[in-house]
């Protein structure tokens, strides 16, 4: 079952305006930069970037390109803004957010991780204590007022819990260290983070891998993402980058 594609156009085929794309990685680590470049090249718009913890702050050049091209309709994240308020307020990304031209929807990181997992694992909804006592228990946190929805809460074992729903992106962009031909993946160190759970959650999972090996080369007891979750794999070079962009 060969999942290797040989050019970037093929890798991002079928992604249309309005698609929701999960973007793997955590700040600078494990971000699928080459696939982001491919989607910039492709020029599709009205995209929802479903992130986990600021991968676009890590891939800041790609973010700036997408903002300039006005490709982004919405970002879902737990840490979507530059850490420095001063840096943020000067940045075109945050300015589009402040102008309501990009929607930013925020969840606690663990809740967001769990929403992707629920989407991948066929769990339509779950109760979490995270955010109880905070604004999160009352409303969706978004800069587009009309999209703020009231949250359902319930007391379970003396703890107020928030009902959250599964999140199932159309596509996932995944950065892996190694893939075999059948899409079994290994990640490296903290570049793992959101990549496995997003690979599980998306309808079509597209992987950029630094290394590609034949099936049987990876230890079957040490595979992080089984190939059943992966639809396409493309080999990319290992490129170095600056890890501090926040």
């Amino acid at each position, binding site marked *: 079952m060969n999942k290797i594609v040989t050019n970037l156009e093929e890798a991002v085929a079928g992604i249309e305006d309005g698609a929701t794309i999960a973007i793997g990685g*955590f*700040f*600078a*680590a*494990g971000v699928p930069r080459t696939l982001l470049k491919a989607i910039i090249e492709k020029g599709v718009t009205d995209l929802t970037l479903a992130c*986990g*913890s600021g991968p676009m702050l*890590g891939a800041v050049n790609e973010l700036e390109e997408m903002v300039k091209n006005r490709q982004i309709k919405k970002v879902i994240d*737990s*840490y*979507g*803004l530059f*850490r420095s*308020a001063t840096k*943020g307020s000067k940045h075109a990304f945050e300015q589009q*957010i*402040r102008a309501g031209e990009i929607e*930013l929807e*925020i*969840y*606690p*990181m*663990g*809740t967001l*991780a*769990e929403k*992707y*997992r629920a989407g991948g694992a066929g769990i339509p909804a779950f109760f*979490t*204590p*995270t*955010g*109880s*006592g*905070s*604004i*999160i228990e009352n409303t969706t*946190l*978004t*800069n587009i*007022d009309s999209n703020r929805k009231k949250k359902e809460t319930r007391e379970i074992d003396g703890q107020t819990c928030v009902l959250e729903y599964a999140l199932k992106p159309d596509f996932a962009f995944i950065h892996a*260290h190694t893939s075999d031909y059948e899409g079994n993946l290994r*990640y*490296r*160190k*903290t*570049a*793992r*983070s*959101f*990549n*496995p*759970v997003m690979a599980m959650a998306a309808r079509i999972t597209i992987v950029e891998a630094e290394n590609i090996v034949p099936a049987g080369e990876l230890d079957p007891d040490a595979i*992080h993402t089984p190939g059943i979750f992966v639809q396409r794999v493309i080999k990319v070079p290992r490129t*170095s*980058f600056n*890890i*501090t*962009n*926040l």
Partner: protein
Amino acid sequence: MKKFEGLPREIIALRVSREIKDNSYVNLGIGIPTLVSNWLEGRDIILQSEIGMLKTGPIAEGEFIDQDLINASCQAVTEVPGSVYFDICESFGMIRGGHVDITVMGAFQVNAAGDFASWYNPSRGLEGVGNVGGSMDLAVGAKILLIAMEHVTNDGKPKIVRELTYPATAKKKVSKIFTDLAVIDVVPEGLVLKEIYPGLTPEDIQSITEPVLIIAPDIKEIEI
């Protein structure tokens, strides 16, 4: 209000490190909490980083920087024998599931009920659409939550307040507060002043703290 000189941030971190027993799994938040790690060398304490790592080693520099190895603050770190990597769901399973023994976080404000605010500064605007990150998960899952912060804001206003005016991270979760001027226990009866900066009086601390402090019978100088 009077402005008092107190411990430098590194020494607040040292005091916090004394509070952490050996054989603990610990998560350190951004700010002063991060500095605690400098005082844990040689101790049998394992740091959890929410990006997906146990036994995070010291900050990496120069040729030891590895772009696939960062902590949750996006700093290059190192691996040590016994380090483990895992994905974000497992990481927040540990955090929310109550497997971390001690959680140390910074705060903008804390009140006498143990509520605290740490994630959003209203001056940024955007009606609370800010960087929550893992803060609410860490708070709700904490078995013991220590707050490490300056006692007052840059312009001298109390951070230990009657009512939070910043949006809460979580409620009734703080166990103990470590500042440059005092160590304060959060108990059902309120805030107990346990340790103070050498040369200051309980009245000095009370003068920059909104809730009425209970003075511990065994109150002493902050032990360094």
